């Protein structure tokens, strides 16, 4: 899980250079964090067009606010907090209307140990089409409340630790664990035919 945490010293250097007006340093931060934040926003909105638009807003806001970033938290926590807050605001405005538009599943899934394990032997997933699985997972995620979806995305999909999530969301670790527990219980109901 630690491989998912970006190099803090390198980030600090890029942030300082960006604060001094080096736009190429900020470009590096954008390159580095776009894939990670894409995963976060995409799994929270369930729509790739909304994700691309929101990411533009997120980085634009980060760029404008960078002068005020004092380094009390890591850039990683800071940019994730901005992303979560902006995505939650977006979801509130969007309301219940959700049009799912899914990204392609990369070929790496065929070699993923989890996927191999889940589709081997007499598993109910053995004959399940990958796209069907993806559709069901996304639909189930969208049935969760926004708060629950956020912790599931950060913990299960992005692989962040409870302590990191609590810093990003500004809640206690206990709250993170509790939200995860209830979210998983709900997902178990929605996906029971895949995990028998």
């Amino acid at each position, binding site marked *: 899980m630690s491989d998912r945490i970006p190099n803090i010293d390198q980030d600090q250097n890029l942030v300082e250079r960006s604060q001094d007006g080096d736009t190429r340093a900020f*470009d590096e931060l*954008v*390159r580095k964090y*776009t*894939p990670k934040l*894409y*995963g976060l926003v*995409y*799994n929270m909105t369930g729509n*790739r067009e909304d994700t*691309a638009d929101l*990411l*533009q807003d997120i*980085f*634009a806001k980060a*760029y404008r606010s960078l002068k005020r970033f004092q380094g009390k938290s890591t850039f990683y926590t800071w940019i994730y907090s901005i992303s979560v807050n902006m995505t939650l605001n977006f979801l509130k405005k969007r309301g219940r209307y959700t049009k799912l538009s*899914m*990204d*392609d*599943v*990369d070929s*790496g*899934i065929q070699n*993923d140990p*989890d*996927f191999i*394990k*889940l589709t081997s032997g007499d598993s109910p997933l053995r004959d399940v089409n990958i796209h069907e*699985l*993806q559709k069901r*997972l*996304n639909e189930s*995620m969208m049935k969760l409340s926004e708060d629950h979806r956020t912790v*599931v995305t950060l913990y*299960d*999909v*992005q*692989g962040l630790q409870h302590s990191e999530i609590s810093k990003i969301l500004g809640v206690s670790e206990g709250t993170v*664990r509790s939200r*995860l*527990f209830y979210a*998983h219980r709900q*997902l*178990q109901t929605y*996906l029971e035919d*895949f*995990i028998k």
Partner: protein
Amino acid sequence: MTEHDPIHQLLRLKRHEQPSPDFVEDFLKTFHQRQRAELLQNSARGLLWERITTYFDDLMNPKWGWAAASVVAVSLLAFSMKPASGGKADYVNNSASPDAFEVKGVVVSPDQSPNANERYLISRHNVGGLSDPNEAQGKALPASFHLSDDTGMTH
């Protein structure tokens, strides 16, 4: 809620949902375009703001301040030098009494109003005819004239 939780294992598969490989570079290109557009918009706003502040700075320039102060001072001076009351009241006040109002050389012309001749003839009739030699000569009469006959009686 462990690594071996089947729900967790299922959800972890979602990390394989990825945008196209050139997404990041395209995204960065769009980001730059957007930044430039914002910069231009801010420049236009900044230019407008600069013009407004320059205008007000010029307005607050000492020379304009002196000019404004001079105008106010001249106005106050003119106002203080002006007589305290209006012309009509003066005219009344200058008289000792309205009763002593004196008209000198005011000419009553028979042509002044359309009914003047008629009123004059009636008044003459009431006082005894049109025998006034002044009148016969067509001379104008003073407004406060006295009609008197040869006996010296005033009518």
